[in-house]
């Protein structure tokens, strides 16, 4: 049994005038290896604490939060890697619903704005639209995004203009469809992004790459979108 200290951002708009940090500690067993394990115990101790969680293995993207100052998934974060007291805050830049739960409406609005689906006007073949293994290779490092919003909420450009800048997650998804050989809307997609706010707010500071819990590289994808635009225009 080990006692672990936490400092957790608490805010319930129905009861609290303003947010505050709650100091709380919890007894952990050796099998409580991930931050989410500890948080489940915390919740058992103080059931007013609110956070999102679901799959507990880094697939659903629900438990993204700011952990000791860096965005990440609680379920993938080793307790051993964290200095105490462990400071937990909601993802920066999005409105707080309660405690560690943020309103992701703006984030998903931007995601939807890049039309995150295959556009192909040819009649659907009997079985499926096939790709060569080489063409399929292009989608690696793009399709794995779980939309946890760790990247977009660590991006200053997204903090300043969440209503206008698509953000790293949305742009990674945009390139995922630009890179898809089955997609026929390349021109429309590039037109959609040819905008000083939507694409060119990115100044390649790579905060997104630093925090992505899936190890993806949105900055590289954004660079490739710019590359496609240059090839189209120059």
């Amino acid at each position, binding site marked *: 049994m080990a006692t672990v200290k936490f400092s957790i951002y608490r805010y319930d708009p129905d009861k609290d005038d303003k947010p505050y940090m709650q100091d709380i500690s919890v007894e952990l067993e050796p099998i409580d290896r991930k931050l989410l394990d500890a948080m489940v115990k915390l919740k058992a101790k103080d059931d007013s604490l609110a956070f999102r969680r679901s799959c507990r293995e880094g697939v659903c993207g629900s438990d993204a939060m700011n952990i000791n100052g860096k965005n990440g998934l609680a379920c993938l974060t080793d307790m051993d890697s964290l200095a105490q007291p462990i400071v937990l805050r909601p993802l920066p830049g999005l409105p707080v619903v309660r405690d560690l739960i943020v309103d992701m409406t703006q984030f998903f*609005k*931007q995601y939807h*704005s890049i039309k995150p689906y295959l556009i192909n006007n040819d009649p659907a073949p009997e079985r499926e639209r096939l790709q060569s293994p080489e063409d399929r290779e292009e989608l690696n490092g793009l399709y794995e995004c779980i939309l946890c919003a760790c990247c977009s909420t660590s991006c*200053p*450009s997204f903090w*300043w*203009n969440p*209503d*206008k800048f698509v953000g790293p997650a949305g742009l990674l998804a945009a390139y995922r469809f630009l890179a898809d050989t089955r997609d026929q809307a390349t021109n429309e997609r590039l*037109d*959609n*992004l*040819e*905008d*000083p*706010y*939507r*694409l*060119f*707010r990115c*100044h390649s500071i790579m905060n997104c790459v630093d925090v992505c819990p899936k190890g993806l590289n949105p900055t590289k994808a954004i660079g490739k979108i*710019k590359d496609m*635009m*240059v090839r189209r*225009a*120059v």
Partner: protein
Amino acid sequence: MVNRIVVGAGYGLRDWIAQRATAVIMAVYTVILLAAVVANGGSTYEAWHGLFASGFMKFATFLALLSLFYHAWIGVRDIFMDYIKPTGLRLGLMVVVIAALVGYAGWAAQILWRL
């Protein structure tokens, strides 16, 4: 007023390329200027005057200054886009910056060809 996500203002790429191109021009000019100063010997009035008397140096300097002004315009505009939220104020500040930079360009030409 309704707040929708509107897409594709239709510009941005040109400025992005221009910012990079102007940066290269300024970097090359810095090397040329340093080499010319070393070759011309020292920082006396005569040495400087002689250096900028040549047509090539006038042209290169003016090109580097124009690059600087265009580069500065894109950078300052980016800062306004990030931090100045009221559209009217942002537009006003942009016009002031453009006017100042165009003024500087004229002033630079006047100085260079007076030498």
